[in-house]
């Protein structure tokens, strides 16, 4: 029964993410429509050691988003999966602690990687010109800024309400 409730929760979270991105954020004026809601939530899940959940959410999220995109099908899913895997590596190898800085860094890294890999692929495939690729990179500045701020705000508010972030993986009992 608990498993059923848990999976129902995952499904609800995924639907909420998709609804936020496709219906609300997508219709906002620029630069607000550059927010990638998945890269606001995924860093928090990584910090909560729920990487597999983040990975699952990203796969479904980008698959569904890909259905409404004019970019080649599968590009966003592939790029999203690569980005979340590398973001998780970054957290384990470099950042290591749970702090607002880690949340911000993971969000910025994920957003940067997703956009960069997309642009590189589109350039290689000849689907965008160099000038158009530069346009993508201008957008990246807004994306990183907005996603990082939102991820930090969510981290801080979660931290204020819950104790789950209030220790680091490497904290010693004597501290």
């Amino acid at each position, binding site marked *: 029964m608990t498993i059923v409730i848990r999976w129902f929760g995952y499904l609800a979270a995924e639907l909420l993410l998709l609804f936020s991105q496709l*219906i609300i954020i997508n219709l906002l004026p620029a630069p607000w429509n550059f927010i990638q809601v998945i890269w606001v939530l995924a860093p928090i899940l990584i910090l909560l050691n729920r990487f597999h959940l983040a990975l699952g959410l990203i796969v479904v999220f980008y*698959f569904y988003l*890909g*259905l*409404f995109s*004019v970019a080649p099908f599968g590009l966003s899913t592939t790029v999203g999966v690569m980005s979340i895997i590398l973001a998780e590596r970054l957290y384990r190898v470099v950042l290591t602690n749970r702090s607002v800085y880690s949340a911000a860094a993971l969000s910025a890294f994920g957003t940067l990687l997703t956009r960069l890999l997309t642009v590189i692929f589109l350039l290689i495939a000849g689907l965008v010109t160099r000038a*158009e690729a530069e346009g993508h990179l201008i957008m990246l500045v807004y994306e990183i800024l907005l996603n990082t701020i939102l991820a930090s705000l969510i981290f801080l508010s979660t931290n204020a309400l819950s104790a789950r972030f209030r220790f680091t993986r490497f904290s010693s009992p004597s501290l």
Partner: protein
Amino acid sequence: MPAPSRISFVIVIIGVLFVIGLHALGWLAPVEEKLRSSLWPVSRLAYSLDAGADRVRDGREEKYQTLAVEEARQKLLEEENQELRAQLDFLQARSYRSIGADVIGKSTDPNRQTRWINRGALDGVALDQPVVAHAGILVGKIIQVEETAAVVQLLTDHQSRVAATVANRDQSLGIIEGGYGISMRMNLIPQNETVTVGEAVVTSGLESRIPRGLVIGTIEAVEKEAYQPFQRASITPLVKGEKIRVVSVILGVSSTAPSL
């Protein structure tokens, strides 16, 4: 918690590649169609609410747009009348086969100016067909077609290119290019031709599926540098593509024999 194993990464990547493969083979099409259509009711409602915010202002602009279209058409027809009366008769006799469509959402690429419409291949919609709004103002063309839906690339999209002509004495040809949703420019206008602010810009008919004479906008400013082989012009669109809710797709030109 233990670090995620490499095997799980490999499984996920293989899974993603498998899904892409199924898509490429077309086996996922029914599922994709269902998933896509499941969102349309909500998407259409949200889009209508968003576009409806400007409803009052749009109502006032509609009068101006209709007048501007009539003026541009009148001017174009007058010039053509002076040159080729028979051709004008043919143009008057010409009628477009078209289909109405509702705009049901935006694409998920924030840097693209594209809209989903609720007509697709089953309705006869095909790639590169022109899409018009109001009294025949070109707003874009079809760049992606699914069974029951299609994607319209607005003229303001940065990848949009439409062959156009200015309704001036020289009938100056050029290419209309979009600029990230905020502007439209007409490039490649020959340097020796005179283009004046306020002149109408219409489709040139040089593209196979886009008929001549669909109104695009008016000249807002002209950039003419002596050392450049071509001049450029900024275009004021007659309709805001971002706020359109109902459009018509021109499927083709059904011609009747001119009564000469």
